[in-house]
């Protein structure tokens, strides 16, 4: 507990839209330790981003509603803070990098300004100091010729460079938590690797805790110490990274791993995609949301959501079935 920099308890977020209520996040709890990196994995629309945006209180309310829950940052509940206190905290203590660097940078402001304003707001620095720091930041994230690029606009940057600039922006005030929301999804494969490496390097330099959101199990092993697997607004499995690969305890985790191309697998072995579609989040969930797609489904799964069951140190899964035997506990 003492070592938790962030602890989320029983968070539920819903959206009220014309078609009804979207049950986006349904009572999830997790924690993050100082300097730790966790990965949050799941298909698109499973509530990964919504969880993080809820914690940072960046969702528009309405249509969003945080129904219940706590998000304790160093013991203080973020949901109790005033908007003003929250503004002070965003970007300074907890920073976020978004998925698409094309749309996440303001097209009509220079890169220099967009990086510099974080410094201005949180540190109240002089213009000249801000300029120097910004140049240094651009250098740190590996953008050549930073003095010239300062006055360029986002459209003059390549995709990879934009994401580097986004990272520079997020790290400007040396936050203690970085939330990276699929930062490599919109990029080429080779650039993806560079960005992963960059974040890892900076994380070590700054001793940051990182929450890395991804739908790609492939990068998880490289970066994270712990993995949270999310499905339909629930955390269905939470485990140290080696345990997830060795001994997954939830059918959904297994299915995700089976869908992964692996070097150690015979070429002839076919990748398995998960049959069926993710559930309709417009229906209030009853029972396990994965039941309709699950091969091991039982009657109980359809009516009662399983709690997280402990399988080892730091290893929990929400399933009524012992996946190794296929028999209910």
């Amino acid at each position, binding site marked *: 507990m003492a070592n938790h920099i962030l602890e989320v308890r029983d968070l539920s977020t819903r959206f009220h839209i014309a078609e009804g209520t979207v049950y986006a996040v349904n009572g999830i709890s997790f924690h993050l330790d100082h300097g730790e990196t966790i990965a949050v994995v799941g298909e698109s629309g499973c509530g990964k981003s919504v969880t993080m945006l809820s914690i940072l209180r960046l969702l528009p309310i309405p249509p969003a509603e945080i129904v219940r829950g706590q998000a304790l940052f160093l013991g203080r509940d973020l949901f109790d803070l005033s908007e003003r206190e929250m503004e002070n905290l965003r970007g300074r203590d907890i920073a976020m990098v978004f998925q698409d660097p094309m*749309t996440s940078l303001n097209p009509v*402001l220079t890169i220099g300004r967009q990086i510099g304003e974080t410094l201005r*707001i949180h540190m109240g620095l002089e213009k000249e100091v801000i300029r120097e720091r910004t140049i240094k930041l651009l250098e740190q994230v590996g953008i050549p010729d930073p003095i010239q690029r300062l006055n360029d606009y986002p*459209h003059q940057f390549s995709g990879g460079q934009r994401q580097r600039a986004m990272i520079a922006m997020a790290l400007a005030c040396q936050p203690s938590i970085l939330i990276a929301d699929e930062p490599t999804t919109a990029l080429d494969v080779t650039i993806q690797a560079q960005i992963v490496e960059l974040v890892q390097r900076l994380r070590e330099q700054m001793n940051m805790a990182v929450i890395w959101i991804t739908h790609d199990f492939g990068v998880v092993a490289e970066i994270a110490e712990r993995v949270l697997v999310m499905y339909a607004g629930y955390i269905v499995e939470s485990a140290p990274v080696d345990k997830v690969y060795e001994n997954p305890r939830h059918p959904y985790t297994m299915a995700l791993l089976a869908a992964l191309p692996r070097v150690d697998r015979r070429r002839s072995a076919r990748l398995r995609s998960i049959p069926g579609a993710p559930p309709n989040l417009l229906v209030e969930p009853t029972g396990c949301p994965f039941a309709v797609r699950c091969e091991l489904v039982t009657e109980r799964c359809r009516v009662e959501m399983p709690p997280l069951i402990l399988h080892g140190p730091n290893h929990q899964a929400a399933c009524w079935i012992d996946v190794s035997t296929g028999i209910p506990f």
Partner: protein
Amino acid sequence: MGRYIIKRLLQGIPLLFFISLILFLLMLNVGDPVATMGGRRVTRRADYERLRRQLGLDQPVYLQYAYWLLGNDWTKIDLDGDGVAETTGTRRGVLRGDLGISLLNRKPVIEVIGERLPNTLILMVASELVIVIGALLVGVFSALRQYSIMDNLITAILFIGYSMPIFFVALISMFIFAVLFKRWGLPYLPTVGMFDPQAGKTTAQVLWHMVLPVLSISIISFAAYSRYIRSTMLEVMGQDYIRTAKSKGLPRSEVVFIHALKNASLPIVTVIGLDLPLLLGGAVVTERIFAWPGMGRLFLDHVDRVDMPVIMGILMLVSLAVVVFQILTDIVYAWLDPRIRYEK
């Protein structure tokens, strides 16, 4: 940038040519200018014919247009009707800045319009200020409080404002602020003219007399732009880069007025720039109702008496304003948007 501006200017030329052609053809049947010339009836057949020749109305249409556009001082015209062209023309044509002579009072059209133009421009500038400032305030406010009771109320009121015919706004506001206020013993607004003849044409008088006309001209555009700014702001506020700005911890005011408004201003500038000269249409009705001695009323008066050179002059001036503002808008837009400004 420079090449872009030149390109846009060159595009404006054929457009104005087409406009002048359409208008000139329409002028052919608006009435007989000679029959009502100067308000007197021309009774003698010979006088009538002479006047027609003097105005060039005996010529085929294409020559009439050529004289209007290029003048006729480079050729001879037949004034005495004997079939032989003997007199050198005196018109220099629109292209050389000669809009002709008013048939009503024999004054150059430029002068006739020039006397009235400032009065209309005062109304236009004041209205545009009211519209832009008002619409920005209301639009941004409304967008930031989307779906609140205030927002819904404002939306409903704006819809009504947007659907108001100008004359109805004018009549109702006159009735309330002049008739009723007077009845109730309150200070009331004037409804006629630019100033009280007894008080003289002072700035205060003109401003006081402007209130109701400006209100009438502004209300429709104000409502339309408020709605437009609201929806543009809402769209921009939903963009990813706004979320980024918030995630950096920028205060709300900075997110709204720098990150959002700077982006929203691109489409807003376009719409306002393009519509600006169209306000002149509203001036026609407003000036009529409030007896405001501007270009709109000049137009109506001279249409009634078929003073073609003046009508044509006003129409071309208005169209020129529309075209020029289109080009200006494009340039301002390009200058505001770095994605265009820095295009190689």
